[in-house]
């Protein structure tokens, strides 16, 4: 196949593929899957954090959190746009989400139990997301790559804010320390799982790397994440819930103990603590918003008729 060869050559040369360009169906399919999952993750990701806006402990933290969740909504928007350039509509993507057919990041199927979860999500979850997104910013599909550049800049800001919060609480009152440690304990493993299965269990990786969608493997990204975060958390005087965690002098890597992949697959397959509630919340919002969207359409149609009449 000549077109495929030319396509792969372009990618090799580091060129970006743009919406009008020819691309293999599988490339399109994989991108739609990834970008829409990513978009859904931003939208569903608003829920666990959004729930704490009403309970933020200071005016400043409240404002920062509203701004953060707002950024997530914005990321959802860019990403839906990026996916739309591949010929799928936002409505179709949302429908797939609400029908339980589309996935979103499993991390959002864990509950936010205390205020310290907000800082911890910023530090660990956004930290893990950034590693992934920085890699994706180099991806071969132009609109996705550009969305990632923009999103990464904002996520980096959230990451910094989250880290600052946890570090503050780690040296705060006994109750603040307890809250921070508890949050780290609950979020550490799910954050490691965010990068997905080990390379040998990740069947999509090979083709994704060949087509320049991914430029690193799951395990590589995971290792980067641990190398950055583990020492910082330990230095803050907090512990990590991994008795096997150790620094390996030879490789300069922090090595982690075995990941509970059974839990991972349980959550991916709909059996995480919050899967049902998250989807239910999205469905309810969608259903309760139906009359609003209908009103908007009716209004727009009336305006158009008036405009034509004039």
């Amino acid at each position, binding site marked *: 196949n000549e077109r495929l060869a030319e396509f792969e050559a372009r990618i090799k040369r580091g060129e970006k593929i743009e919406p009008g360009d020819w691309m293999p169906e599988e490339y399109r399919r994989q991108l739609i899957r990834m970008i829409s999952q990513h978009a859904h993750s931003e939208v569903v990701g608003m829920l666990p954090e959004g729930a704490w806006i009403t309970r933020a402990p200071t005016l400043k933290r409240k404002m920062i959190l509203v701004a953060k969740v707002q950024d997530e909504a914005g990321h959802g928007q860019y990403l*839906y746009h990026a996916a739309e350039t591949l010929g799928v509509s936002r409505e179709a993507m949302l429908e797939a989400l609400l029908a339980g057919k589309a996935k979103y990041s499993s991390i959002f199927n864990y509950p936010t139990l205390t205020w310290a979860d907000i800082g911890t999500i910023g530090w660990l979850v956004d930290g893990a997301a950034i590693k992934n997104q920085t890699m994706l910013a180099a991806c071969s599909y132009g609109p996705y790559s550009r969305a990632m550049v923009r999103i990464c800049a904002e996520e980096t800001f959230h990451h910094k804010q989250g880290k600052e919060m946890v570090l503050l609480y780690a040296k705060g009152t006994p109750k603040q320390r307890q809250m921070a440690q508890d949050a780290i304990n609950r979020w550490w493993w799910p954050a490691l799982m965010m990068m997905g299965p080990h390379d040998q269990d990740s069947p999509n990786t090979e083709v994704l790397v060949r087509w320049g969608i991914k430029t690193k493997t799951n395990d590589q990204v995971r290792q980067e994440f641990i190398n950055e975060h583990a020492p910082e958390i330990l230095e803050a005087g907090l512990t990590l819930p991994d008795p096997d965690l150790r620094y390996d002098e030879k490789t300069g890597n922090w090595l982690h103990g075995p990941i509970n992949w059974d839990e991972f697959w349980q959550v991916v397959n709909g059996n995480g603590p919050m899967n049902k509630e998250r989807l239910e919340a999205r469905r309810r919002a969608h259903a309760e918003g139906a009359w609003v969207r209908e*009103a908007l359409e009716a209004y727009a149609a009336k305006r158009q008729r008036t405009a034509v009449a004039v």
Partner: protein
Amino acid sequence: MRSEVREALIAKLTALADDEVILAHRGSEWTGHGPILEEDIALANIVQDELGHATLWYGLRQQLDGSDPDQLAFFRDAYGYRCCELVELPKGDWAFTMLRQYLYDLYEALWLEAAQHSTYKPLAEAVQKIMREERFHLQHTQAWVERLGQGTDESNRRLQQALDMQWGYAQQLFVPIPGEELLVAEGIVPDLLPLRERWLEHSTRHLQNAGLKLPINPGYQPTSRAYHTEHLWSILAEMQSTARWDAEAKVW
């Protein structure tokens, strides 16, 4: 500044800030549950601005009496809060939310416009900072009122129902606090009476254009900010729960 004027100004700033804090609370209950993603973003914008305004007003109070804004927001109980009842009402549906926001934004925009000439410089400067934001809010919520009012029968019905509920409460925005006449006399804050007339004129015209029925029997019109609805206690229980969970904490 004479001490009665100072006291009245402190009370007025508190009322201004409390309104914004509680309205922001109600607005933030929508986060992630809006009817369209774009509206999650727009409402988050409004909420942030309201929190910003609250911080400004509490900040002006702090200059006068040294009180800490977060202490005021998170450690005062329902007896101490001086918000109006309109902002306490449960979030309701999207029509209820947009209408309340509109009625409030129109009041705030008019108030700010008049308050930019305040003889109290810090207030006049604060007003300058936030006037533009408020104009954007008003544009946004005004447009929603029109869309819902002229949209479907269903959206019109819901908006009308919201209006019937809120109209009386909204009148409290124009009830002066005790001592406000001193502030008006000194040119520190605008007189609410002429503002009310302009508000009535604007809102009536816009609501009628949107296809709503007016005038409305206002029903209950709260007259004192010392009283509240049954909801305030629970709002504060939720809102202050983290801050009060560890009262020893110095920073959050």
